[in-house]
């Protein structure tokens, strides 16, 4: 059956309606849901940005980067250091005072977030330039190492980051609008890029870098481009994350390998290489993660009292992850996107069956 395409103007119109609809949903949530659920919804937005930016690098361009947590960390710390008031900084940095000029600046949330993204992007350029020439496995280890290096640097550069003490008492600037607003920006920018000649070039690089070169594509330059763009949004998510948590520290769960793993679960669940899939994966992960809190508190199952076992959550998550990899590798969306054309053709096929 022919795949029918809707007229472009209609699709743009539908998208705008959808965005307005989502804004309305968020508005209602903020009014009627209790704080707990609003926080979860906000977190989904933040996770969404992490997931979309990672799937752009890993799934669409085929760069197996395991260092995403590094970019989130850079973004988180950059933004936090910029939004904290001067007095706060003096109070927190009692091991070693914060270096100049950071100790005398304070910026608004938006500027701090954007600068956070830029910092992450700069690091991505510096790391990517030598590393992206490496092939899959080596690149994975190198980026993993990079993520760890960032964490260790944060841990040790006490006069910049306050080391193991972390930064506490951050203003909870991140609300549902900032999170989903930035998610919208991320999806628009990355989606627009993917839906262009550049997207085709990146996918070609993913499929076969040698053939891509033979078709005139500068593979390294395009990989670097994808890496930097992905890192930029990861940095943004870091800023949002820090101001949602209100505290950041260099522990592996917060800004280390465990964060990378969580985002990896999101994009594998959602479908490696799909932007809409990444958002679904982020939502699924957030909800699953919260629901699994149950297993970490005492509960009754079939009348038997099960005691609280800490660490169960991660165990269940990683088991699910391995099962998904073994049995349902394509995830929710596989490599395809949820598009207006896709929905239209789905209903067309249903209609045909009757």
């Amino acid at each position, binding site marked *: 059956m022919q795949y029918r395409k809707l007229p472009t103007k209609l699709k743009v119109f539908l998208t705008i309606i959808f965005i307005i609809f989502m804004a309305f949903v968020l508005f209602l949530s903020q009014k009627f849901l209790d704080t707990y659920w609003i926080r979860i919804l906000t977190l989904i937005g933040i996770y969404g940005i992490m997931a979309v930016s990672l799937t752009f690098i890993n799934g669409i361009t085929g760069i197996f980067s395991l260092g995403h947590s590094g970019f989130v960390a850079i973004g988180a710390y950059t933004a936090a250091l910029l939004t904290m008031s001067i007095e706060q900084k003096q109070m927190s940095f009692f091991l070693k005072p914060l270096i100049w000029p950071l100790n005398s600046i304070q910026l608004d949330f938006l500027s701090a977030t954007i600068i956070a993204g830029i910092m992450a992007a700069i690091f991505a350029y510096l790391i990517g330039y030598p*590393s992206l020439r490496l092939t899959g*496995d*080596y690149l994975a280890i190198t980026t993993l190492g990079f993520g760890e290096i960032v964490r260790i640097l944060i841990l040790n550069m006490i006069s910049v980051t306050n080391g193991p003490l972390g930064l506490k008492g951050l203003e909870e600037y991140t609300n549902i609008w900032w999170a989903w607003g930035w998610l919208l920006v991320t999806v628009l920018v990355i989606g627009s890029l993917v839906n262009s000649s550049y997207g085709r070039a990146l996918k070609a690089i993913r499929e076969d870098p040698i053939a891509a070169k033979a078709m005139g594509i500068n593979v390294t330059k395009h990989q670097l481009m994808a890496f930097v763009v992905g890192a930029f949004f990861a940095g943004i998510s870091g800023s949002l994350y820090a101001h949602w948590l209100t505290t950041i520290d260099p522990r592996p769960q917060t800004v280390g390998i465990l964060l990378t793993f969580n985002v990896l679960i999101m994009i594998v669940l959602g479908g490696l290489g799909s932007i809409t899939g990444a958002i679904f994966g982020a939502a699924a992960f957030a909800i699953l993660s919260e629901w699994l809190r149950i297993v970490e508190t005492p509960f009754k199952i079939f009348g038997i009292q099960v005691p609280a076992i800490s660490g169960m959550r991660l165990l269940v998550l990683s088991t699910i992850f391995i099962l998904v990899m073994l049995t349902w590798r394509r995830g929710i969306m596989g490599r395809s996107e949820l598009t207006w054309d896709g929905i239209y053709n789905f209903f067309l096929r249903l209609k045909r069956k009757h």
Partner: protein
Amino acid sequence: MRMTLPIFLQNLANGILLGGLYALIAIGYSMVYGILRLINFAHGDIFMMGTYFAFYGITLFLLPWWLAFVFAIIGAGILGFLIDRIAYKPLRNAPRISALITAIGMSIFLESLAVVIFGGIPKSFAPPRIYPKFFSKMLQIGSIRVQILTFFILGITALLITFLIWFVYKTKIGMAMRAISTDIATTALMGVNVDFVIGITFAIGSALAGAGGILWAMKYPNVNPYMGFMPGLKAFIAAVIGGIGSIQGAMLGGFLLGMIEIMLVAFFPRFAGYRDIFAFIILILILMYKPSGILGAKLEEKV
């Protein structure tokens, strides 16, 4: 701290010791990568599991320490075999990225399993509870003092490596392993049960990792579920430095990395907190200038 000869020699001894431990773990990584082109991220966690097996063998099952060690090493080997069977074998024909991602998942799985079963609080692997106090006695050699433990660890390491070299070069299965790492399809056509040999490779590599874990814990007695992450990562780096896919490369890389790490901290104590980063910097340098490693052969892609 001034660098005097005794201090230098002391650090040298530590460097050799650490190098030997890295070498043990690196060999397992190299063997698996040589055969499957898979970085088994869970390798470091098998290292950790072996240690816990030994710990509980002694404290829970009240076995004599040496027996518990042997069982733990065998247990680690079996664990490695099972992991391959369950998680990696089904993905033999899937794209490499899938197997890699699964390996990461397996790593996190093992770590969280350890947290749940063994608890997240670190356990002590120190004498006299775990092994006789005899090992912590210091021997005076010239101007330096070395623990008997150091000789024990080095001795066992040498023994295990010798056994491994015998196995790989003198037995039929070892030959099959070498054949598979050159050309898996042809080896299968020659009637070799490839899956079984791959399983054995995992088993041996994991057993070595388990041994490495136990010996590691004897020297650095803090046993916790995440203890394998960093040593595992560094062991892989060591394998790459020496030349991935070759056992000699893994050994060379392991010893080199251990020495460099200890020496850098000895000469620049200010950077002690950054010591883990050294390994990565060396990795990046090697991958940029000699990606096949010091001893390695180039794995070219045919155009």
